[in-house]
């Protein structure tokens, strides 16, 4: 790490001057680092967003349950009353309430549209339960409900909570894997660019060796150049990526999953890690390429 830092603190010494200043590899490295950093910001945003999502789903669903009462219209009210009485005496319940017609309509609206005649449909009655942190004894409650209200069915969301949380967890893993792949791809591209630059400057390297330059001196000249290019490109890509993430529509407007893709609070600091990481990748990749090429020149 000290050697990476020395590249930025050491100034443009003689090693920096010996490499010709321009070339297509300069633009290639800058562009690659910028593109990879841009993608890395999105992968990071995906990873953090899915992490938050998994946490939110897990927490929210773990503390809620629903009772669905399906009964003939003439028995529905009586069974609902019976269910509410059972809930009133059930330990582990923080609050409960039967959803009214408007709430049922709002629930169905995304699928059936705003003009749904809820009254004309044989819909079950839903009772929403919020549990205390201690939680309820789901099996005990099910037994009591089957005795008091045969049409009532307790859904503690466990059936679909688990796959949702698992899916969010996998998405998070995919985001992290993407970051690793992006880092690897960037290292590969910069290695190739550095090798191309070293090959293009074979005469420079031969001349430097002829006048007594050590490998470390020659490598430093190229490593410094490519590390700074990697850092510069990554700074541009990260800035653009962060701007693009910030420009995503707010979650409230569209209400979908993807609109939650972004950073929250201190999460905005995470992308700032990308440029120094990119510089470290460029440093390692160029160091590797430089010593490999230098071994071929006596």
């Amino acid at each position, binding site marked *: 790490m000290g050697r990476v830092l020395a590249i930025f603190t050491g100034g443009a010494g*003689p090693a920096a001057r*010996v490499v010709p*200043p321009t070339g297509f590899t300069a633009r290639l490295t800058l562009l690659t680092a910028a593109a990879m950093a841009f993608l890395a910001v999105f992968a990071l945003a995906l990873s953090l967003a899915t992490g938050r999502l998994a946490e939110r789903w897990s927490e929210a669903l773990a503390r809620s349950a629903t009772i669905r009462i399906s009964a003939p219209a003439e028995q529905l009210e009586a069974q609902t009353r019976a269910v509410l009485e059972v809930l009133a005496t059930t330990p582990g319940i923080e609050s409960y309430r039967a959803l009214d017609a408007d709430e049922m309509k709002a629930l169905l609206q995304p699928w059936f549209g705003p003009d749904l005649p809820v009254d004309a449909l044989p819909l079950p009655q839903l009772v929403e339960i919020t549990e205390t942190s201690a939680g309820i004894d789901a099996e005990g409650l099910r037994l009591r409900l089957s005795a008091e209200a045969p049409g009532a069915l307790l859904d503690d969301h466990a059936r679909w909570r688990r796959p949702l949380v698992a899916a969010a967890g996998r998405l998070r893993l995919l985001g992290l894997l993407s970051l690793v792949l992006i880092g690897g791809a960037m290292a590969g591209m910069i290695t190739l660019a550095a090798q191309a630059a070293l090959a293009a400057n074979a005469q420079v390297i*031969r001349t430097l060796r002829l*006048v007594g330059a050590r490998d470390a001196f020659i490598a430093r000249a190229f490593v410094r150049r490519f590390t700074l290019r990697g850092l510069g490109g990554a700074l541009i890509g990260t800035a653009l990526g962060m701007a693009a993430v910030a420009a995503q529509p707010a979650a409230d407007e569209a209400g979908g999953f993807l609109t939650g893709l972004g950073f929250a609070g201190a999460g905005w600091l995470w992308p700032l890690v990308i440029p120094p990481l990119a510089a470290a990748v460029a440093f390692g990749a160029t160091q590797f390429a430089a010593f490999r090429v230098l071994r071929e020149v006596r």
Partner: protein
Amino acid sequence: MIELQNVAMSYGGGDLLSEMSLKLVPGSFHFLTGPSGAGKTTFLKLCYAELLPSTGVLALFGQDARAMTRDQIAEMRQKIGVVHQDCQFLDHLSVAENVALPLSVTGRAVDHGELAELLSWVGLRAQSSALPPQLSGGERQRAALARAVMMSPEVILADEPTGNLDWEMSLRLLNLLVELNRMGKTVVIATHDLNLIRAAKSQVSARVLRIANRRLQLAGADL
């Protein structure tokens, strides 16, 4: 300083040089002659470890060339100034920066007064800010010589240094090398220009070596 003991150099299954033995002593002056393709450049490359012998012993400043690390080779080359026929420079650096390169790459400070003096000595003071592609063939040779002596090396190896020069310029370059030899430097000049060797006769005591049939021979009496 530079010693070859029964050195042979093979490439692609064929012998380029064989049974070569020579000891370059400090302050000596040698001409290396032979027809084109005889192996003069190969011999010089052996002398600064650009190539390693296939067999035999090559000792550079008391060290076995085969056992030298890359850093030791770099260090050894700081004691040897090399002038090639096709002098290579860093084209994006000025003549002065190129001449000062041996100091820059070893992290030593450049004395600009000394640098200017050296450029004047080789007649390139006016071109110090020019870029190498702007120089003529003769100027390039002189710039290469200035670079070769910048570190005050103990040995100067010149491979056909007058190959691209007119006679007047060749004599001027020869005079510079003779002057360096008088300062105590060991000089080896590979050339097939017999007139150049004759011209040196009046100025310096030199040995003439000849590569023929892949072997090194002493060509006639010392000059």
